[in-house]
């Protein structure tokens, strides 16, 4: 693990830089921290950052570039004739890498001398057996070009790593020295360090954007492919979802509308269960419950969020469905055909979502300053009036966030829908009918047995993309509403 050691060395340089920088800064102020612009620690951090950031940057770049360079050089050594029919340069290179790694291991195990490993004239049959004896997994016989390439590969890599190590360490030292030079009393170390932290914060926030870009990129090509095979208008406006198993071609109806309707319907039912229960639970926990009860009940309810969804799915299928059937089924009110329905899935999903609403809201309600409550009690309000009219409005932005989170989860849930709501896509108003959601269909089409180049399989990507864009639109709308609402308060 030479890289591991390299990282340790750089960190050590940074640590030393931290101490020295701190000390130097203090010294430049005559040993009195009051003469410094910033706290001594910031000078230390400044030095440490200057040692670490460029050095690690170089390390990362080097680690990305060197393999490319080495593979390129080495693969140039392999004549085209050495690539077996049907194989590829990439595979031969994998073989090269494996041989090189095998030799590394054999050398470190003492079964092969370094000289032997480097010796370009080594007999390759011998190398193969030796490696096999050393317990290395060697596939077939190592061929001459592969052995040569592996040797070159080892040499290039080890010199590369050597140069890299030196360069990284030098850079770290230089950075530290530069940082040290700056460590004077007047230097605005805190601002510099804070700029650095801020850059980190921005980088963290940007990961969300990168993820989005990644998702779009990983969906978009297949989506385009799908629309090449299937007319977009039928996808977006088709009222029927009936993929036929592919291979017979052309007969599938892939209209998204029933799926969207199912998604919407099931999510609404789930939220109708989760939001009132969750909100009331949060209110009770934060305002009424004795600390003992709260300490127990809150984590327990949070467990609901951690039960694997397959359990909920089975719960829906085996317990809730039959229960609903008894009441609403043929023997009861006669509204329900079978145990799987929007209601079943929605109810069970709602249970799963309770902690999303309750725990977060509880924390936020708890953070409303007591002075707000006092103001209301002082006017003769009851506790519930206070909660409803003062505390909840004050906590509203956070609660809205919690509910949005729950809604998002409802849209993204699969297992409960598959087992609880059935697999049938239907446009119906009756909540006791089986329906299904976009997400469930994404999963089933993606994990199905259909031809992967057929519209029936590719539709999963188009569904994912559409859902993504729709929820994006909903979120823009929600943001707009929240903004507008927030202006009234605060």
């Amino acid at each position, binding site marked *: 693990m030479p890289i591991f050691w390299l990282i340790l060395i750089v960190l050590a340089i940074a640590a030393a830089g931290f101490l020295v920088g701190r000390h130097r800064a203090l010294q430049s102020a005559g040993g009195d921290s009051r003469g410094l612009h910033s706290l001594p620690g910031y000078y230390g951090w400044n030095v440490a950052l200057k040692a670490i950031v460029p050095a690690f940057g170089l390390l990362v770049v080097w680690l990305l570039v060197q393999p490319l360079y080495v593979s390129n050089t080495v693969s140039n050594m392999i004549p085209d004739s050495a690539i077996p029919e049907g194989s590829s340069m990439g595979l031969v290179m994998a073989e090269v890498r494996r041989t090189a790694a095998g030799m590394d291991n054999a050398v470190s195990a003492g079964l092969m001398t370094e000289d032997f490993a480097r010796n370009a004239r080594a007999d390759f049959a011998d190398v193969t057996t030796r490696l096999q004896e050393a317990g290395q997994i060697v596939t077939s016989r190592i061929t001459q070009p592969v052995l040569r390439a592996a040797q070159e590969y080892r040499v290039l890599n080890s010199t590369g790593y050597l140069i890299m190590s030196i360069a990284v360490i030098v850079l770290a030292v230089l950075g530290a020295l530069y940082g040290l030079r700056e460590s004077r009393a007047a230097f605005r170390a805190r601002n510099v360090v804070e700029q650095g932290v801020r850059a980190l914060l921005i980088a963290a926030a940007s990961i969300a954007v990168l993820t989005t870009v990644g998702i779009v990129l990983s969906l978009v090509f297949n989506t385009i492919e799908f629309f090449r095979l299937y007319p977009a208008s039928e996808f977006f406006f088709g009222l029927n979802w009936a993929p036929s198993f592919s291979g017979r071609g052309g007969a599938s109806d892939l209209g998204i509308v029933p799926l969207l309707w199912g998604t919407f319907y099931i999510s609404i039912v789930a939220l109708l269960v989760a939001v009132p229960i969750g909100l009331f639970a949060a209110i009770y926990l934060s305002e009424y419950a004795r600390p003992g009860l709260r300490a127990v009940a809150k984590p327990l309810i949070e467990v609901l969020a951690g039960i694997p969804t397959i359990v909920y799915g089975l719960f829906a299928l085996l317990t809730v469905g039959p229960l609903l059937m008894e009441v609403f089924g043929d023997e009861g009110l006669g509204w329900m055909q079978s145990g799987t329905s929007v209601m079943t899935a929605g109810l069970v999903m709602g249970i799963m979502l309770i902690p999303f609403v309750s725990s977060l809201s509880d924390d936020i309600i708890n953070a409303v300053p*007591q*002075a707000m409550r*006092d103001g209301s*009690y*002082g*006017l*003769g*309000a009851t506790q519930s009036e206070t909660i409803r009219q003062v505390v909840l409005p004050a906590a509203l932005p956070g609660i809205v966030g919690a509910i949005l989170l729950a809604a998002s989860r409802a849209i993204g849930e699969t297992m409960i829908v598959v087992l609880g709501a059935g697999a049938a896509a239907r446009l119906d108003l009756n909540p006791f009918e089986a329906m299904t959601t976009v997400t469930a269909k994404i999963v089933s089409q993606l994990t199905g047995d259909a031809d992967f180049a057929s519209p029936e399989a590719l539709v999963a990507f188009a569904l994912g993309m559409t859902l993504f864009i729709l929820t994006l639109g909903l979120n823009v709308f929600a943001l707009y509403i929240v903004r507008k609402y927030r202006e*009234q*308060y605060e």
Partner: protein
Amino acid sequence: MKVDQKEIKFDCRDCQVYYGDTHAIKDVNVQIEDKTVTAFIGPSGCGKSTFLRCLNRMNDTIDVARVEGDFMLDGEDIYDKNVDPVQLRAKVGMVFQKPNPFPKSIYDNIAYGPRIHGLAKNKAELDEIVEKSLRRGAIWDEVKDRLHAPGTGLSGGQQQRLCIARAVATEPEVLLMDEPCSALDPIATGQVEELIDELRENYSVVIVTHSMQQAARVSQKTAFFHLGNLVEYGETGQIFTNPVDPRTESYITGRIG
């Protein structure tokens, strides 16, 4: 200053308040009269706010606070378990030391109390109550154009008057005011003092103040607290001109502002 045959509104006996281990109020006995302004004075941290908060059971909301003793309002013990603190607080209103407007509009801040007590039959009546209360709180002119702006966006003194107006809006029988004029300029202070004087005609008012002049101006009775003890209680005139206890005297004479 006034004759003494007033009814007793609050009769407090052997009152003790503890914050955890700190004994904040010690053996306080005091009788607060109806239709009278009673001033609580005393050095900072002596327990004035604490005692005031006992009178409408606001200390219930502080976990560590423990209250002992008898607090009789019109002959009924307000700490009795049959007593509904909500009803009590509707009767005994409070203005807090730190202004605490709700994060709502100015209008809703005032309308909140009347709404929950059902004091207005319709919107017009409510508007009327709001305007009247804001006028009584001497803040109407400053906010009449922005009744729907948030109450938290007001200046310190405006917030304080907003809170006074809010307390008055529910027409309590007893009004407890914890330093209601601390952030007010003299003119506004004068207006609030006028309000207090007006309230006295029907109600009982208890006011905590650090201004001896204010106490002298508005109150008929004065209580002097020191380190959790009620040192002296009596006619305001007598307390200021002829205190019995040496501690009272030294506090009064040490007067500067």
